[in-house]
Each structure stands twice: as structure tokens, then as C-alpha cells.
């Protein structure tokens, strides 16, 4: 038996409680001090409900775009060789490494009417900044690495023999992809999708610069919390935060279940 079990477990639990568990429980306890009516009023007011719709809708669209392009990028990186592949592979993690505020202002500068991209889309009559379009674009940026990085290792480990067998048995390439390859990476793709979605729901820094932040139109739920805090409405801020937190827990459980499913699939294939 190695020494240090009690020491390390003790410190782990102590630090975890101090930094994460006790502060999070403060949020729960604060909720109990709010009356039910107060809570319902806070989380169902018109402005807050509009922010849920916007946040969930934009996050869902962004996560779907990420699922499609993330799969495509992972596929291209694993299966093909081309010039500059290593640099591109390294660049995929940029949204993880780049501070969200930096991403926010640079996407805004890019998409406003005199930006590199915005000036052309404006001519086509499409405004990308300061409305929900901008929010979706920022959330696509933030969520991209999740899908690529969960699908990529599974694709790398996929056995070529199965594909060869499918082709020998007369399947076309598209049939092989939809019937053989896709089912084996589906849980990883779903995991990446769920991670990107969960991250997008809570995202703040990259969105607020580009959103325009108009109440009822382009105001995201995390910004509602900030707004209530600035007016010292702690009960209201806590109520909305609890809704977001409940959603985070649900997503955490879903992602854990999806990862177990993927492990079972790859385990069974070996």
C-alpha cells in the first residue's frame, strides 16, 4: 500500500469543499430564503423568458453547426494529409486558449459594417453584429473545439477492417459511412454536441460585445444575472442562476452517460 492516501484524499476533499461545494451550496441556501412566488416571478418575467429562448435557441443552432463542421474537420484531420495540417490541428484549440473577451471584441470588429467580413455581408443586406446572428457566430467560435476534440480520437481508433469488410460486401462509400462509421462515432459526436451546447448556454464574455444586448431581443440569460446584480437584486439574480445551474447539472449527467456509452461501444469493438 502506497503512503499518502489519507493526506491526499483529505486535502482534495477540503479544497473541493472550500472552493466549489460550500460556495455552490450558498447559492442553494440563498434560494431557500426566497419565497416561491418571488422565485416564480423572477424566473418567468417576460424579459427573462425572452432571454431563455434566445440563449437556448442560439446555443442549439451553434451546437448543431459545430456538430456538422466539427465532424467534417475531425474527419479531414484524421483521414487526409494536406499541407499545414499540423498547424491547423494546433489551431483548433484556439477558442479554448483565447480569452473570451478578446474573442468577443475581435469578432465584433470583424462583423461590424466596416469590418473585414461585415462590409460585404452588409451589402448583401445581412447584418451580423449587434443582433442574434452575432450571438450564434460567437457561440460557434466558442464551441468548435469540443466536437472536434471528442470525435477525433474515436475516429483515429476506428478499425479500418470494418470499413474494408463493408466495401467487400458491396457497400458504397456513403453506405459505409452512414451504416458503419457513423454509428461507431455517434456517441462521441453527441458528447461533443452536448459539451458545446452546455458551454454556449453559460457563455458570457464572447457574446456581450457582439450581441447588442437589447432587452427582449438580444439579451442572454447570463447578462440578465449581471443586470440584476448591478441593481442589487440578489434574490432575482440567484433565482435565474439556479435555473442555469440546474441546467448545467442536467447537461453534466447527460455528458457522463454519453461518455459511458462511447466507452462501452469502443470496449466492445476491441
Amino acid at each position: 500500500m502506497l503512503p499518502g492516501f489519507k493526506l491526499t484524499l483529505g486535502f482534495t476533499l477540503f479544497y473541493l469543499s472550500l472552493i466549489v461545494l460550500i460556495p455552490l451550496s450558498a447559492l442553494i441556501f440563498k434560494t431557500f430564503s426566497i419565497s416561491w412566488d418571488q422565485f416564480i416571478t423572477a424566473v418567468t418575467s417576460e424579459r427573462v423568458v425572452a432571454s431563455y429562448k434566445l440563449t437556448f435557441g442560439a446555443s442549439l443552432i451553434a451546437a448543431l453547426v459545430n456538430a456538422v463542421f466539427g465532424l467534417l474537420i475531425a474527419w479531414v484531420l484524421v483521414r487526409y494529409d494536406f499541407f499545414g495540417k499540423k498547424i491547423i490541428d494546433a489551431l483548433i484549440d484556439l477558442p479554448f486558449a483565447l480569452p473570451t473577451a478578446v474573442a468577443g471584441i475581435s469578432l465584433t470588429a470583424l462583423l461590424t459594417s466596416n469590418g473585414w467580413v461585415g462590409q460585404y455581408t452588409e451589402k448583401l443586406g445581412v447584418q451580423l453584429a449587434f443582433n442574434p446572428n452575432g450571438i450564434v457566430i460567437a457561440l460557434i467560435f466558442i464551441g468548435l473545439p469540443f466536437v472536434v476534440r471528442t470525435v477525433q480520437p474515436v475516429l483515429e481508433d476506428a478499425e479500418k477492417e470494418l470499413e474494408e469488410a463493408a466495401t467487400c460486401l458491396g457497400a458504397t462509400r456513403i453506405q459505409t459511412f452512414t451504416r458503419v462509421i457513423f454509428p461507431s462515432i455517434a456517441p462521441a459526436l453527441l458528447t461533443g454536441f452536448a459539451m458545446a451546447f452546455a458551454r454556449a448556454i453559460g457563455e458570457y464574455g464572447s457574446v456581450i460585445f457582439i450581441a447588442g444586448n437589447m432587452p427582449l431581443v438580444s439579451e442572454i440569460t447570463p447578462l440578465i444575472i449581471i443586470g440584476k446584480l448591478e441593481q442589487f437584486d440578489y434574490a432575482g439574480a440567484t433565482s435565474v442562476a439556479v435555473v442555469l445551474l440546474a441546467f448545467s447539472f442536467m447537461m453534466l449527467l447527460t455528458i457522463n452517460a454519453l461518455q459511458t456509452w462511447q466507452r462501452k461501444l469502443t470496449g466492445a469493438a476491441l
Partner: protein
Amino acid sequence: MSSPNQNMRSKAETTESPIVRLLLIGVALVFLFLFLVLPLATVFSEALSKGFTTYLNALGEPDALSAIKLTLVTAVIAVPLNLIFGVAAAWCIAKYEFRGKSLLTTLIDLPFSVSPVVAGLIYVLIFGAQGWFGSWFEEHGIKIIFAIPGIILATIFVTFPFIARELIPLMQAQGSEEEQAAIVLGASGWQTFRYVTLPNIKWGLIYGVILCNARAMGEFGAVSVVSGHIRGETNTMPLQVEILYNEYQSVAAFAVASLLALLALVTLAIKSAFEWKHSREMKKLADLPPERPY
């Protein structure tokens, strides 16, 4: 089907035709160019749009310097604390079996799924003027919210899992045979860690620290809630970027942002170097003959 055709087909059986391949690569590259390369290029182009001297002057502003200093101080405190935690958590999770282990692992990941704004809010609820301990701290003249301690706490929270989650799978994969051998040979617990475990996890450790540091220096949402935005006092670099940007000082905002973007690029470079080294070591292990002569 004639036989040359048959040959071509067997060659192509696990890949796509060149046209499809080119098309897929093209679409992927265009997407990445639009969503990753352009935003990154924008940061530097905007920062330097009024020339290099203006850029340097913007970085030399006292408020910018104090923001840089506060960001460094925050990272210097938050990262080592999370490093100690990460090593301790990985040691007890990877080397022992106990009840509730998977729950513990899930709880460690928890800060990743909490919105940064909510992370800031929980510290306001505890230490704010109306919070649990707020009045006690106020009586003793200690300011936590709208002051530096709050910024550091919020940063520790959002970067909490980074190092632990790099080390746990790594140490689990390595098992504990080498440590057992060291103990049997009479090494103390600390010696075993220092001379056996640490060299093995060195790269994962550096990797985790780099990622943790990047997030610690770049955190915006959580820090924004607890900072109070006092110029020259409680503004970290990302908050300084926000203030300058909202004051239409675009060049200055992008100048500070460019430092953070450089940090991100360095982080990615070190990460790639680590992964390259790691895969080479794995390959070396795989190339060894199955029965190793000891």
C-alpha cells in the same frame, strides 16, 4: 466489371475519390479560416492600425500596466494552489480504490459546467455586503468582493479542474507498480513521489499548468462579477479590454487584447510540443520488442 476497375476499387475502398477529398478539405479550411484565422488576425491588425508607437504607448498606460500586474498576481496565486490540488487529487484517485471515487471525479469537473457568471455570483452571495460572511469581514476591515481576494477566488474556481483532469487519466494509465517497488526498496512517500512519480507525469503536469494559466489570465465573466471595475485597482487585463473597448478606445483595447492573444498562441505552441513529444514516447514504447530484456 473488368479487372482493372476491380483493382481501382479495392485501392479506394477505405477512402473517398480525390474530388470528394479536395472538396471536404476545402470546406473545412474555409470554415476554419473564417472562424479561427480571421478573428485572430483581426486582433493584431486592429492593435497595430495606428502604428507601432501608438501600440506601445497604449501598453505603457498606467492603467494597462496595473491590469497586467494584477493579472500576473492572480495567476501566480491561483495556478500553484490548483497545481497542489491537482497532484493530490490525482494521487488519491489514480493510486487507490475507494467508495465514491467516480462521484469525486465528477465533482472535480463541476466548475467546467457552471456558467462563469454564476461562479462569480456564488462568491458575491458569500462574501458580499449582504452575504453570509460579508458583515464579519467588513467589521474586520477585509474587503473580498470588489477587491483582489474576490478576483483570485473566482479565478481559482473557474480554473479548478484543469490540472487534476490532465493528471488523473495519466496517472491511472501508469498504474502504481513503479511506486510500489520504490516503497519496497525503502524510499519514503515523498522520495517516491519526487523521484518516481514526478518524472513520469512531468509533461502532463506542464501541460495542465499551461492550460490552467491561460484560463486564469483570460477569465472574464466570473472576474467581472466580483471585480467592481475600479480602474487601476481591480481591473485584470480582460476587464481592461472591456473598459477600453466600451470607451471607444479601440486601439488601446486591442493592444491589451493582443498580449492575451499572444499568450493563447504560446499556450497552443507548448501544447502541440507536448502532444508531439508524448506521441513520440508512446511510439517508442510500442516499438519495443514484446519481451523486454531486463
